[in-house]
């Protein structure tokens, strides 16, 4: 018979489809692996590299920033603005402005590595959405005070 190969292929092909269906049926009976996102949320890892936040020194309770400007200079995107002034009777400069323009930030983490006093760290925020650009211009000093 000339059509031998044809019928064989029909048979093998149909079998392969059934085998594939078997795989999907097996998955169908197994527990759900997806997370129903807005209703359920996964714990984010503590090593997550979010946008930056100022942190307090656990001993003094103050932000250890010395306004050296290393973070602003290292930033590839130029999204950090740091300003400070020397108040009377104080040895070092104190921080007056620490702005982060998150619209430009590429979350590389070079600023955190460059900071000599470990005054900045990554935030755990990942649900970030907004309607205007200005919502992403963060005043980190204000955020630090709000966190208490």
């Amino acid at each position, binding site marked *: 018979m000339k059509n031998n190969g044809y019928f064989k292929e029909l048979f093998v092909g149909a079998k392969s*489809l059934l*085998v594939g269906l078997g*795989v999907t049926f097996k998955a169908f009976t197994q527990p759900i692996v997806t997370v129903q996102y807005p209703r359920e949320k996964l714990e984010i*890892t503590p*090593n997550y590299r979010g946008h930056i936040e100022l942190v307090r020194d656990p001993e003094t309770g103050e932000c250890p920033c010395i306004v050296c400007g290393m973070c602003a200079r290292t930033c*590839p995107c130029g999204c950090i603005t740091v300003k400070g002034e020397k108040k009377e009777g104080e040895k070092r400069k104190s921080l007056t402005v620490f702005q982060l323009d998150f619209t430009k930030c590429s979350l590389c*983490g*070079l600023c955190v590595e460059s900071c000599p006093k470990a005054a900045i760290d990554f935030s755990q925020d990942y649900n970030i959405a907004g309607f205007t650009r200005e919502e992403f211009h963060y005043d980190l000093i204000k955020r630090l005070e709000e966190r208490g």
Partner: protein
Amino acid sequence: MPEPCRPDSKPHRFFLNMGPQHPSTHGVLRVILEMDGEYVVDPQPVLGYGHRMHEKMAECRPWPQFLPNTGRMDYAAALPYNHGYVALIERLAGIEVPLRAEYIRVITSELNRIASHLLWFGALLLDLGAFTPILYSFDDREQILDILEDITGSRLTYCYFRVGGVSKDIDDKFVERTRAFIKRLRGRFPMYEKLVNGNIIFIKRVEDIGIIDADMCRRYGATGPVIRGAGVPYDIRKSEPYSVYPEFDFEIPVGSKGDSMDRFLVRFQEMEQSLRIIEQALDKLPEGPFMAKVPKKLKLPAGDANFSVEAARGELAYYLISDGSDVPYRLKIRVPSYSNLSLLPEMCRGMLLSDLVAAMGSLDLVIPEIDR
């Protein structure tokens, strides 16, 4: 080339735009197709929709600030891109990298390669009309992203390697989770084979479609699984070994015919080989520092250097010319997808439109890498 449906039919030819927004071009690739009925007479890719001047950016900023850019060219496998750039700077500045850091680089790069292949696997089948496999492959890919997120801090555009080492050491948890993942993925391969590799519809769609021979690959400079599918065991990890790859025992899978099926199988077997590399690296993982002592302000010596690595899609080469300052004079990046895409017109001439989708999917193109 099949018989054109109307041999004498010049006036019936028409043009069809595939992309820039087409689900199977995966990004903003536009292909102008000259069609004769259902047959493609001449496909011409149009590039530049996602051009971001990465090479120019490298020329106008100090070299450490280019690090985040490297992960944003091929976002599906960012770590080999990181690896190439930091290794290039290390070669130029003569920095020795601690052994542990090299092992970490290899482990994470290979994990990233598997993640990229799983993404491609799902996306190719999605192009061919099978929706289910991508859900399974993303389930596995998700495990890798979780492992890498825990160690690198991000899920896709990693910026993890640093000149002289890596930014963060791996811990026991990472080793444990990676071992668990290797076991899991090995158990999943038979399932994929049942679901996809043996499926008659899939076989009919990819077998003998888009045949590329070794000579054509060499003419266009195609690398990676494309040239390996054509039967040439060309892999930078073996042919020009870098990092600690010579210490591992692994094979380079090759195809025989050079059709889409061969490229599919090559990538599939590559995942298994990557698992082997990771397993050996975890066994041999040495103790020690994960970062070399690098001066804080490192000026690049005048001169030039190049470094090539095996990215998930083929050979990635960086070439840097330095004039002695910390800003590179020129950084040339040779990306694999660009050469692989250039095969498209010759490969797809005379093909059915639906076969073009299968053939293009088997090239595994990442468009932001082409339009860097």
